[in-house]
């Protein structure tokens, strides 16, 4: 029997106004029911826009859509939901203060049995937790239904988001780069669950950058480039290399060198000792007795699975979180880390350059133009005696857009950019500043495609060779191994490994430290 076509999209075009960027240019998509269908392409290829059209979040300028063979015109997210289409966003849209169960069943809450309470719409909260638990078990998820979502790790929040769609009987699930926030182990677990969901006859659309994931889990894959569909391929009859060359449009990708050559270590730039934080910041574990130093021309890679202290360390290093104890030496000064304003001065003066991991919340003002976002961090250069130097600002933005290959215009609203392009903008902004003594880079290649990742990696090597110290906070073990001179691993807020990145270290070994099965 011929498998049913769940989704058919034809000649979809979408132009964002007022910038006039053509995000989809006659894109095509055909997805079989009960399959996992991957959509791949570089940053700004139009993958997310096409999915937003399917989810009713964007109205296409032209094109036809059929769902389960029925021609339809998806006019709103509510309409898409009525058609059984649900989207799990790259940046989760949830109520942080509500519990996992409340988020999952928001709008579908079971009410109390007694008639009066039911009339008043009083929610049966124990029944709610029960229902969430049984739904989670059905698909092999493990969540605490009563925990407030804001306190959960990213991977658990993602599970909540997927369960929310499943609770609404969505037949077609769209996942936008679901693994960009997950570690290897979490990704494995997610894929098992996706296979389970497919097994139950549901259709999954998976937007991703990672070819190995496509090969591992997808049945078919559609490649997009510059808003157009290049083709749809059966995963069984194509190889990872073939797929990579189709995505890159025939441009050969640079060789990735795993173990790097060791740079000459310079003087110590920053030394941290006895760093501790209180627990419960962002629902985290708290840091205890962290100590490290980083030298000029050296990359210190710090790695941890989610909820093991990496977020807290980032916030301390960003000057957003006041630690409970510790000492810091930087720029010839020794001070108590609790005196945060003293530390913040180095960030402000540009001696430390910091790239946040949460690019949407901390690294951009989405409703301002790209130019304003670009100049925001080095206002000293773009304002002279308090007046803006617009020509200079525009030219510098244009140059950065060119140098970092960002699909954007200086006047364009930042909200219109794809997640990858916003990340590239944040990186371009940092590397266009005068060179600092220390870089703190958090998840610098999150959600970036292969080519952009390589670009960023070579930039990091450049600044390292030019004598900056680099602290690289990343949950991507490959990235840590590729770039770091020394590697540090955090587990439950403690430092379980600090070691030279020599032949001794490898993925498997680091994995054991990350999971706590091996300790120092």
């Amino acid at each position: 029997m011929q498998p049913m076509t769940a989704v058919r999209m034809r000649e979809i075009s979408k132009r964002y106004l007022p910038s006039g960027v053509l995000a989809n240019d006659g894109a095509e998509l055909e997805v079989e029911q009960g399959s996992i269908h991957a959509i791949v392409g570089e940053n700004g290829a139009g993958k997310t826009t096409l999915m937003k059209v399917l989810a009713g979040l964007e109205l296409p300028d032209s094109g036809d859509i059929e769902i389960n063979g029925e021609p339809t015109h998806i006019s709103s997210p509510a309409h898409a939901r009525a058609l059984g289409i649900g989207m799990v966003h790259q940046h989760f849209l949830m109520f942080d203060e509500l519990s996992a169960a409340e988020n999952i069943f928001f709008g579908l809450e079971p009410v109390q049995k007694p008639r009066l309470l039911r009339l008043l719409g009083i929610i049966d909260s124990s029944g709610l937790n029960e229902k969430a638990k049984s739904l989670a078990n059905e698909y092999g998820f493990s969540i605490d239904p009563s925990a407030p979502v804001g306190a959960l790790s990213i991977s658990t929040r993602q599970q909540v988001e997927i369960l929310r769609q499943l609770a609404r009987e969505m037949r077609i699930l769209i996942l936008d780069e679901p693994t960009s926030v997950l570690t290897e182990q979490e990704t494995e677990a997610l894929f098992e669950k996706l296979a389970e969901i497919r097994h139950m006859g549901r259709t999954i659309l998976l937007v991703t950058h990672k070819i190995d994931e496509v090969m591992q889990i997808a049945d078919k894959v559609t490649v997009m480039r510059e808003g157009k569909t290049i083709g749809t391929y059966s995963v069984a009859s194509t190889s990872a290399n073939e797929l990579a060359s189709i995505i890159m449009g025939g441009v050969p990708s640079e060789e990735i060198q795993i173990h790097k050559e060791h740079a000459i270590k310079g003087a110590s730039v920053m030394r941290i000792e006895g760093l501790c934080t209180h627990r419960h910041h962002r629902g985290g574990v708290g840091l205890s007795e962290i100590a490290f130093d980083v030298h000029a021309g050296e990359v210190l890679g710090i790695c941890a699975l989610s909820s093991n202290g990496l977020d807290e360390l980032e916030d301390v290093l960003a000057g957003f979180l006041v630690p409970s104890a510790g000492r810091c030496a930087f720029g010839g000064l020794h001070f108590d880390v609790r005196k945060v304003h003293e530390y913040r001065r180095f960030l402000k003066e540009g001696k430390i350059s910091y790239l946040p991991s949460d690019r949407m919340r901390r690294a951009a003002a989405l409703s301002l133009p790209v130019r304003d976002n670009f100049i925001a961090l080095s206002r000293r250069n773009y304002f002279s005696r308090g007046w803006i130097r617009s020509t200079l600002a525009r030219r510098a933005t244009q140059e950065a857009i060119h140098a970092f290959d960002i699909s954007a215009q200086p006047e364009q609203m930042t909200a219109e950019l794809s997640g990858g392009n916003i990340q590239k903008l944040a990186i371009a902004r940092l590397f266009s500043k005068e060179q600092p003594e220390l870089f703190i880079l958090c998840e610098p290649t999150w959600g970036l495609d292969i080519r952009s990742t390589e670009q960023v990696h070579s930039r990091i090597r450049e600044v390292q060779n030019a004598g900056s110290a680099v602290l690289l906070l990343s949950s991507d073990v490959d990235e840590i191994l590729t770039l770091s001179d020394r590697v540090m691993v955090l587990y439950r807020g403690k430092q379980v490994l600090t070691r030279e990145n020599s032949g001794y270290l490898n993925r498997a070994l680091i994995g054991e430290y990350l999971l706590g099965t091996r300790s120092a």
Partner: protein
Amino acid sequence: MPAERELHSPARVMLAVGVSIALSAVVLALFSKDLGSALEQFFLEPFSNRYFLGNYLADAVPLMIAGLGVLIAFRSKNFNLGGEGQLYASALAAGVLALRLPAGTAPFAVWFLAALTGVLTGAAIGALSGLLKAVRHVSEMISSFLVSAIVINVSDFFITGPLQDPASNFQTTRQLAPKFLLPRILAPSKLDISIGLALVLIVAFMIVDKRTKIGFELKICGENEEFARYCGIPVAAYQIAAMAISGGMYGLAGALLVIGPQGRVMRGFSSGLGWSAISVALLAQGSGAGIVPAALFIAFLGTGSDHIMIGSGIPSEIVSILQAVAMFFITARSLPRIWKKRGQS
């Protein structure tokens, strides 16, 4: 996110203005005996002669100044709901000062000192809410509203108590010396030279907003506070400053009324101005240039209403309905989306 920006479309505002004017005509038709003359009184009379036009423009001046203050606070995502009290108390402070100055003081010095007193009084009250927000995380909406409620009652006490003009039957302070009042233009109307100051302030704001570092940093604070902190912008300082400026502008509007059209501080004279200024800022949709037409429109609703109230005997409650209808349409956010969907189906 793209949908967010549709809110700023001028078409939407024009639509709201158009609909509210049309509905006003409908309400007039329902309640007036002679629709023709009511319409004429409402729409045309404010422009019919020098006196009416001058009075109409004079009503728009405080709305421009205070509306600009609200807009500046909006720009940094601060909502100043204490305008009533800020304006009233500042007017009183400016009035007391002007009454105490020796009769020989140069008029220019009186104007300057009174305006300055108004600005400082309003700014101090506004800054209090900004400070509470920055330091204690108290919602500036609630604190400014509550502080305003207190300040109004305290001011009432002074006007009707120690500062009451014994010679007057009204609850008011003494009258200022005529030479201390701002020079009138379009006499005999109450329009004075403060309209020039209002326009200068609006232009100055537009320049600061578009071209200066302060304007830029204020915008970033309003758009994304966490990003502002990442950029090293002193967020707390901007919060306090935005509330202080907003309060200061209300204060200036109050002071200018006292040394201008009012000439004294009468109990409750500012009633409603604080809220109308918020309407002006909403209507201007975040644009400095938009303040002028917005203030003219809101002042027009008030003036037109006064004319039919006097001319056709339509009760003031009906007039309030007209204003409420207009505000309802202007602040309705779902309007463009409904419109858009219609266009497609």
